[in-house]
């Protein structure tokens, strides 16, 4: 029995030719629902690749509008989109890439009152936001809901990638940074080189595909640091902090 349509075989032929892939795994992608919070540099890198690869349902969340200063690193948008909401424009572009998907856009900022409903039911959540408060909130709600979280961040020439699974024994975002910690490296304060944020977003997209298809195990609880000057990645383990208000109850048996 064929599980994919004739068009799907053609569309996804190159990724189906990857040794570890098959049509069942391709179907797993079409059944998955991925929430992308933030449609800046990270979101613009992640979203078209997930749409292209056939992730069946995409939820896009961002309350911002396209600005001229976004264009160097946010290639989903063009000059004529300036002033439009990012979620709406991104949605249209993704549908142009792949009409077979369900793409939902939420032109709103993720806040405490809507976070649970926006993230609920996701196969995986991608944190592509640009501030500490949103990152802490997404981490907290993903742990509440038991949804895996692949968090990306970039600033200046540095990137960070963190893979968190609420059901695995490791620390969470709150174990890494406290909400009060300031960001010496925000885009506003320090700037950003477009490819650096693109590379981190690409890693989020890659790990999302690996996770949904299960073609390779993910290193949950690993923090990866990217240095844009050397092009090197460094991997660190993130142990749980005893008594962490977010993941504390999940991690009684970590060693």
């Amino acid at each position, binding site marked *: 029995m064929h599980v994919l349509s004739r068009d799907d075989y053609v569309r996804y032929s190159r990724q189906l030719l990857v040794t570890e892939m098959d049509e069942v795994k391709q179907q797993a992608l079409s059944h998955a629902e991925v929430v992308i919070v*933030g449609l800046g540099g990270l979101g613009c890198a992640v979203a078209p690749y997930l749409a292209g690869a056939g992730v069946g349902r995409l939820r896009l969340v961002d309350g911002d509008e396209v600005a001229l200063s976004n264009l160097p690193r946010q290639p989903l948008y063009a000059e004529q989109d300036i002033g439009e909401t990012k979620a709406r424009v991104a949605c249209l572009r993704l549908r142009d890439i792949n009409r077979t998907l369900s793409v939902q856009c939420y032109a709103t900022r993720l806040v405490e009152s809507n976070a649970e409903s926006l993230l609920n039911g996701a196969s995986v959540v991608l944190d592509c936001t640009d501030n*500490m408060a949103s990152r802490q909130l997404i981490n907290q709600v993903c742990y509440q809901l038991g949804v895996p979280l692949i968090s990306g*961040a970039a600033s200046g020439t540095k990137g960070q990638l963190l893979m968190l699974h609420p059901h695995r024994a490791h620390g969470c975002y709150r174990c890494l940074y406290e909400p009060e910690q300031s960001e010496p490296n925000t885009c506003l304060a320090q700037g950003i080189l477009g490819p650096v944020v693109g590379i981190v977003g690409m890693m989020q997209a890659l790990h999302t595909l690996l996770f949904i298809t299960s073609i390779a195990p993910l290193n949950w609880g690993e923090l990866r*640091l990217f240095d844009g000057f050397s092009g090197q990645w460094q991997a660190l383990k993130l142990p749980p*902090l005893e008594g962490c208000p977010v993941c504390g109850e999940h991690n009684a048996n970590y060693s």
Partner: protein
Amino acid sequence: MLITVNDKAKEVAEGLSLKQLMEDLSVDENGLALAVNQRVINRTLWHQYVLHADDQVTLFTVVAGG
């Protein structure tokens, strides 16, 4: 004893805590995090974490942009 801080060798006193190391380096701690031997050490534990010879300390900054 000898440790490394971001791959650079550094001579430090025996029994030095991470907290003391950070003070010695006189860096702005608020935007910083660190790992020892590729394991992140939460900032609330820095004062009780005693360094050993050959420890590899990795300092990195908070990155929250996107």
